[in-house]
Each structure stands twice: as C-alpha cells, then as structure tokens.
C-alpha cells in the first residue's frame, strides 16, 4: 500500500498523491534505556508531564521529557524492579503513589525516603488464584471515577478456570476490598474507560469469541466465556450463576477435539434471549481486518488536540502493531458502535497506551509470545496529530432503517449521494466453544437511499434489512470530499447489538 502511494508521488503530473495516515498522525520512536528490554505493558500519567511505564519484565520506569517535541529530551529513571509483570499501572493523585497490577497482586509502591526509588511495596489485594500457567495474566486499570481499580484475569491456559476468579473482572475498592464485578472473560488485553468513565476491556479471539472484541464491563454482567462461572458461589453479590450457553457444548470435553454434536452452534443474539446476564460485545474488532490481538483502550479527552475524534476510543493491537478507532453509542440500553482502522506502523506489538491532556498518545509494548508486525522486539513510542484533518468517517449512528454517517470534512454531494459509492455486508460469528470462527450468516442488504445533509457533513443511508446481532460492514469507496479526496479509511464495522426503536 505504502509503495503504491510512493509510485504515485513519483508522477505528480498525472495524479495527486492520495493522503496516507502519516500525513495526519506522526509516530515518534523513543530510544529506550540500554540496560533493559523496555517491554512496556502499561502506561499512566504522573504530575509534571512525567509518565510511569510498567513492563513485562517487572520494572517500573519514570519517564521525563516524552512530551517534548525533541525526542532526545526523554530520560528514564528506574523506580522499581522485580515485580511479576506490570500489566497495569495507576497513579493515585490522592496519596501520590503508584499502583501496579501484577500476576498475583495489586501492589502500592511508596517512595518514603524520596530518593526516586520505591522502598515500600504493599499488597493492596491478592485475592485471586494463580497456578503458574503462562496464560494467567492479570491486566489492571487506572482508577475509575469511584476510585476503584479494575483487574481482568485471563483464564488458565486461556481455556478454563482452574483457580479462583480466572475469567473474571474484579473491582478493588480504595480500602483494598475486592468486589467481583463481571464474569465471562477469556483473554483480556487491556482495561480502559470511555469519556463518561464507563469501564471496558478488550478480549481476544478464541473459544466463545469469534473475534477480538471491545466489551463493556457492566457490573453483574456475564461477558460470554462460561469457563469462569464455577466461581459464582464466591461472588454472592453477582446473584445466581447464569445458565451456560449451548449447554451440551459446555459440558463436553474440550480435549475431545470433535465438532459439537447436535449441529449448528449458537449465536450471541439468540443466547441473549435465554441468558439475561449475557452482555454482547460492544464492538467486534473484526478478526484479521482490524486486528488480531486487542490490547490497550485509549480515550481522547484532549478536547481536540488529537484531531477531530474527541471522546472516541483508540484500541491498540499487539500482533498488528496498530491503533484502530471506535465510536460508541447507547442503543436500547446497551453499548454498541463502529470500528475503523486508524494508524498502523508502530514498531512492535502494542500492549500499553495512554493519552495526555495535550493529545499525545504514548504507546509501548513487545512482540514476545505472539509476534507482531512491527518487527522490533519492544518499543516505546508517541503518536501525535500533525494538525491536518484527515477526511474520515467521524461517527456512525444506527437508525431504525439504516445508518447516519458523519464526516470530518464536508463531502462532495454528487459522490456522497450516489448509491454506487456504498456497499454493505452483514455477518456474525458463531457463539461456540471451538476456537475462533468464520464470518457467517452473510446478508447483503440493499441500500435504497443516501441523503446528504445540507452542510455536507453527514449522509443518511436507508438500508434493508438490518440484522440484529450482526456486524454491518460499510464500504464507502466512492465518496469524495469537496476537495476531491477519497476517505483515508474506506471501511468501518458497526456491531448492531440492537436496532433503535
């Protein structure tokens, strides 16, 4: 793709070069401390423009100068080491301490003598089980609006729950008390908040997950993988244990490696009818197209300093080394929305990410264990808006008879009003015990109207049929801006959990 654009640049008399992502969002790669492999697992902001980085090697580094326009101003100080994988880091402005989520506990780190190195490591909470299995990662959040920390716990081997609360999201209150919050987690990649402070996590493709997903952590909900539901007797606040999806598959032996007897597996939209606690993914991060290994959730609270996508979410991906962009809305009481590709080309697999008030997105990660497109074993980078506004879909809203699509720049009414500029495909995934799954139950709906708003900033599409529970893949290949430019990203995937009434 890049090479193609380059070719075009070489013959400017014939073509104007199509814009590319780097015209709008610039990636800066920082040098990292020589004495370590800075496999960033988590990032939070500290006072005075500093950052705290937690790493997979169990270190916490305090970074200064990363916000500077000159990347050589960055400097690092080792705050703590020897922790068991820091996949969550949170700065608490109330007590001015850092809180690290590690494999087996949330640790409060204090620097009592003020020498810049932690000297007190207090166990805040360690009430979940860990068995030595490689996959039992613990991914922690920053502090939520109630002052709680969230920790999402991967299943044992990412398949079953051999020790307490594997496959759960737990809420750790300021006094250290643990409250079980959600069941049904499989293999979390990161926990984050939207602009309203609602909590989300990313799950990864596997059993009961046809694709990576962005999921809304509504307390009391069941997020889809029944493996951890054996611990409901330890979570009386959660009410009765949900009935298992497609019981015959669940009761079977995972090791049998046979197709589930009894034919077609279930669908999320169908199982929701019989399992009231089951909350479908807010957005399918369509496997192989958006990413492969969803991780950090980064909300744009910079008020426009990161470009036109204020309050939207940016989802990092380890294996694709990219960020995608999510717009969410609440329809019939639950979250759903659309995901677009946003920026690729990070140097390694992205695991941790955080935006500062100036709209600078700091990301970092490593390719360890699963490989990543970036090519480097680990990285720490910054992604900034160049100040140029890309021509992109801004938001996509579900309507009872179609979608409303808004744009970052006015559209050319001729192309935007032309039905041939659009195409849509709808599909879903089986909700099944086997690993992953294809895009199935394809529907090719008819787009019968494309009405361009007077200000040219939105188009109202009339589409039939809409399919509840399906991903609605919208292509906008023919659309041009008033300047004649195509969209920077021409396809988005809207997860239609609910059709607006």
């Amino acid at each position, binding site marked *: 793709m890049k090479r193609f654009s380059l070719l075009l640049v070489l013959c400017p008399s014939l073509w104007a070069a199509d814009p590319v992502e780097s015209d709008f969002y610039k990636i800066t790669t920082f040098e990292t401390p020589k004495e370590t492999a800075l496999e960033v697992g988590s990032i939070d902001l500290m006072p005075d423009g500093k950052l705290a980085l937690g790493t*997979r090697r169990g270190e916490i580094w305090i970074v200064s100068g990363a916000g500077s326009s000159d990347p050589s101003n960055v400097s690092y100080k080792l705050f703590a080491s*020897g922790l068991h994988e820091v996949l969550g880091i949170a700065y608490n402005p109330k007590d001015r301490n850092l809180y690290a989520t590690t494999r087996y506990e949330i640790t409060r780190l204090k620097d009592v003598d003020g020498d810049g190195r932690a*000297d007190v*490591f207090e166990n805040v909470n360690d009430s979940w*089980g860990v*068995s030595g299995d490689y*996959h039992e990662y613990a991914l922690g959040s920053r502090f939520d609006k109630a002052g709680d920390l969230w920790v999402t716990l991967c299943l044992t081997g990412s398949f079953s729950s051999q020790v307490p609360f594997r496959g759960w999201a737990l809420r750790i209150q300021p006094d250290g008390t643990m409250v079980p919050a959600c069941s049904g987690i499989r293999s979390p990649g990161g926990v984050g908040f939207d602009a309203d402070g609602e909590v989300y996590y990313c799950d990864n493709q596997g059993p009961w997950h046809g694709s990576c997903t962005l999921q809304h952590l509504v307390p009391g909900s069941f997020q889809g993988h029944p493996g951890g539901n054996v611990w409901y007797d330890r979570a009386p606040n959660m009410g009765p244990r949900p009935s298992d999806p497609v019981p015959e598959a669940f009761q079977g032996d995972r090791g049998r490696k046979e197709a589930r007897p009894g034919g077609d597996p279930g669908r999320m939209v169908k199982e929701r009818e019989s399992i009231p606690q089951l909350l479908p993914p807010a957005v399918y991060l369509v496997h192989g197209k958006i990413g492969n290994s969803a991780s950090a959730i980064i909300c744009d609270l910079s008020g426009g300093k990161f470009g036109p996508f204020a309050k939207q979410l940016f989802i990092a991906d380890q294996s694709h080394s990219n960020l995608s962009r999510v717009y969410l809305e609440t329809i019939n009481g639950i979250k759903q929305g659309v995901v677009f590709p946003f920026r690729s080309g990070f140097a390694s697999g992205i695991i941790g990410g955080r935006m500062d008030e100036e709209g600078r997105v700091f990301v970092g990660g490593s390719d360890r264990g699963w490989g990543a497109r970036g090519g480097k074993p680990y990285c720490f980078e910054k992604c900034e808006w160049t100040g140029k506004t890309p021509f992109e879909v801004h938001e996509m809203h579900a309507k009872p008879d179609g979608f409303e699509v808004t744009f970052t720049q006015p559209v050319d009414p001729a192309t935007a009003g032309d039905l041939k500029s659009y195409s849509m495909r709808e599909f879903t995934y089986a909700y099944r015990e086997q690993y992953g799954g294809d895009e199935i139950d394809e529907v090719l709906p008819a787009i019968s109207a494309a009405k361009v708003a007077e200000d040219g900033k939105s188009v109202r599409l009339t589409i039939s049929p809409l399919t509840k529970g399906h991903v609605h893949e919208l292509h906008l290949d023919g659309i041009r801006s008033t300047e004649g430019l195509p969209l920077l990203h021409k396809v988005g995937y809207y997860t239609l959990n609910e059709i607006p009434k």
Partner: protein
Amino acid sequence: MIRPLIFLLLAALPSHAAETAVFTLKTMTAQMKYDTAELHASPGQPVKILFENGDDLPHNLVFCQPGTDTAAMALKQMENPEAALKRNWLPDDPRIWAHSKMLNPHEKEEITFTAPEKPGTYPYVCTFPGHALTMRGELKIAPVGGGLEDLRFALYLGSWKQLPDFSKLTPHREGKVDDNLIHVKLDDYKNEFGVVFTGKLTAPKKGSYRFFLASDDGARILVDGKEVVNADGIHPASDIKEKALLLEKGDHEFRLEYFQAAGNIELYTAWKGADFQTTPLSKWLHPDWKGGGKKKQDFAPIPLVVRDEPVIYRNFIQGAGNRGIGVGYPGGINIAWSAESMNLSLLWRGAFIDASRHWNSRGGGHQAPLGYDVIKPTGEVTPAFFVTDKPDAEWPKWDPKNGLRHEGFAWKGYSLDAKRFPTFRYTWNEAEIEESYTAEGDGNKPGGAPTLIRTVKITGPLPANAWFRLAAGPVEARDAAFVLKGATSCRITAAGAQITGQNLVIPAKPGTLTITYQWAQ
C-alpha cells in the same frame, strides 16, 4: 523463511568417522554444571575437546567406563583426603580412561583422545570434592548408520500450498544423485517446484528406526510406500519432526517428497537405529541438529547479577509456590520467599536466577535457582506457624489445585531498608510478623562459610499451642546446632529450638527469633 541461504550452506558438514570430532565444553559460572551434558562420537573417532573453566572454582573433566558410579568414585577420595589432594583430586581408579588437569578458575585446556571402539555410554564428571553429583555428562559412542543408495530425483513444476499427489504429475526432469545425499540444488528453480527423491535404505537388523525431517516448505518421508513423517504445508524449517518405525532386516524403499512455494529452501533428514547414532541422509544439516532430533527451546540465559545491593525477582520459582519472591543477596547467598505460604522456601548459594524462561515467550512455568547447594528447609510451600498439640505431626500441606491459601495468613508486602534489604510482612490471625534476612560469608567461594541469618519479629497475641517450624526432614542435634540432612546438608542454630519427630520447632511467642542457616562443608 527469510533467513539468508548462505547460513544453510555454512551449516553443511559431512559426518565421517575418520574426521576429528571437535567439541567445546565449558563450566557454568556458579551453577556446578557443564554447559553440555551429552557428547556424541563414533567408535575409534579422534576427539578434541576444548575444555574451558569459566567458573570461580577449580574443575576437571574425567571420562570413565560405562556403568561407573562417578559420584561414589569421587566421594571415595574423602577416605584419604591427603593422598587425594596430592593427586589434585583425580581418583586413583582404573575405570578412568581420559581426563583433563584440575583447571583453576578461568583456565583452559585442550584434550585429545581416540574414542573407545566399543559402543556405549561413557560418563564424564568433575572429581573435585562435592562437585560430582551435578557436574557430569555422558559421551555416547555409536557408529554412524548406513546411507541411501541408488538415490534418484524427479523435479516437478507447480504452485502448491501443500504436497500434491506427485503420482498424477509428470516430472519436468529426472536423474541420479551422485553423492546419494538428499539436497535441493539452488541453481535450479527458486520458487514453485517439487522434488521426489527415491532410494534404497538398508536396515542392519530387525528393530525400531527413527526418522527425522525438517523442511521449508512441506515434505514427507515414506518407507516402503507408507508415510512415516509428515511436515506438509508452508512453514519454516524450525521444527524437526521425528517418528520411529519398525523395520525388518534388509533393504527398504525410501521416498522423500518435498515442495517449495516461495522464500527459503531448506530440507534436512536423518535416521537413527538402536546401534547407530543419528545419521544424516541429507547434505545439509539442521542448525539445531547436534546429533539428535529433539526439539530445542533453549533461550539465551538472562542471569540476574547481584552486585552491591540485593536483587528481587518476583515470579514462578520452583519450590516457592506461585507467589515466589526471589532475593539474591550480595555475596552469593540467595533465598526464595513464598507469599503463598508466608515462609522461607529455599536458600541456595552461587548465582541467583536465570530470567530467560520468564522473559522469553509467554512467561509461564517455574524457574529453578541458578546457583547450587539448594536447601528446602520445610518442604514445598508450608507455613512456618501452626497451632498443634503435637508439634511432631505433619504441618499443613499446600493444595495448589484449588488455589486455596493457608488459613489465617494474610500477605502485607515488604519494605526495603537503606541497603535495599527487604523485610517481609504478613499477619497470622491476630499477630503481625516481620521477617528479614542478612547474609555473611561468601557463597560463591569454597570455604567461604556462607551464613544466612533470619530474623522473625512477632508482635501481638498468638494462639495457645502455636509453633514455628524451622526445618522438616532428618534433623539431628550436633555441636550446639542442628543438622538438616539432605543432598546438601544444612547447619541450623536458633535459641530454644527442639527436635520433635521429623520437625525442628520452636514454641511461637511474641518477640524475636534469630535463626542461622549454614551450608555444611
């Protein structure tokens, strides 16, 4: 798949009995091990070993006859240590047939010998006192097996994602392979072709034979028309596939099918019998071959080096449960504390720990200490405190399956003092416990008299019949101390300690316990 081809050509080496087998064998720093535990040679083959002592202790390399109990042989020297010292700790034993000098730290020596004519497993060992239990390996002598005969190739052109049915295709070219070694000629076609090799293989007797195959892209081996090993599909040649097969004595039809889609071209195959070592049937050898087909998952070590302040490593440490806290103290003395059992799990000397298992790949599994003389005073993940009217009884055992923790204990964390020495804190029922450690002597040197001093401060009420256990196992009182016997014995002192059954215990009371642990010399 994109590794440069030149690398493969460098890895090509013929294996003939007449050529000298050259090995480099090193001692590992502070681990009481050689870096190689297995060497291979053919009967009567000239052998050259570059022996390097990278450790801080003296070591030698002594080859013995098959079946020698090398540990007993080395230990026997202690019956007359003066005489043994004069011989520089080389046992006077007729079963020794080759040996190096006793190398001082950081010395090297080149030793040469002719491999024994008789096939078998010849142990090698370091005979310096106390080293033989772990510092050992085996020299395996086996003849090289026979190769392919009448080897022919048939080249096919086509684009495949897996092996096609070659029987339905017409070869583009056919011919004889003069050196009877399977390889893909790189001057032919670079992409989108397949080759079928056919030849004759002779089994010297009826028995089990193992075939090895690694290829980029897909390949499979058929013997007498039956598939033995399958490595089909598009992939790099990193995995060596292997499978054993029962063969009658005599000639067998060997067929290897291979295809190349795009990218790198690699093809390696070999076989092994009960009476002969792994013998290549291909011109190229796999970079990881080393005489066997075992899949290797060795990472370059990442030893955590302890300098002037303690190093902490919280991770899965073998013998310390799943909430292990390793501490390497300056001076070659190390512990693993368990936040699972709230107790000291292990102490050892020498090097601290190798992080490569957890800092490569996905981070699972339990890592054993890197050093040596590992002592596990009270067994696996048991608490120190226990309420019992029978202190000679069993202490609670840990059940890792359901993730239950020992009742009444709560982990609080640790703080570091000005020298960065940790104090661990936990509660047991109403009592608050603080545990800290200091180290004396030098654990890296023989005669360094390494000593670990453990201080346990107990505040608050304790239940009646509360006991603190220091050690479990065969313990005996000796010279105002207690000796915990084991592979490595440990000398323990603590005021008020008493032996009861297999337990060394102290009645638990508020106050401070001071316990010392010394490695018995």
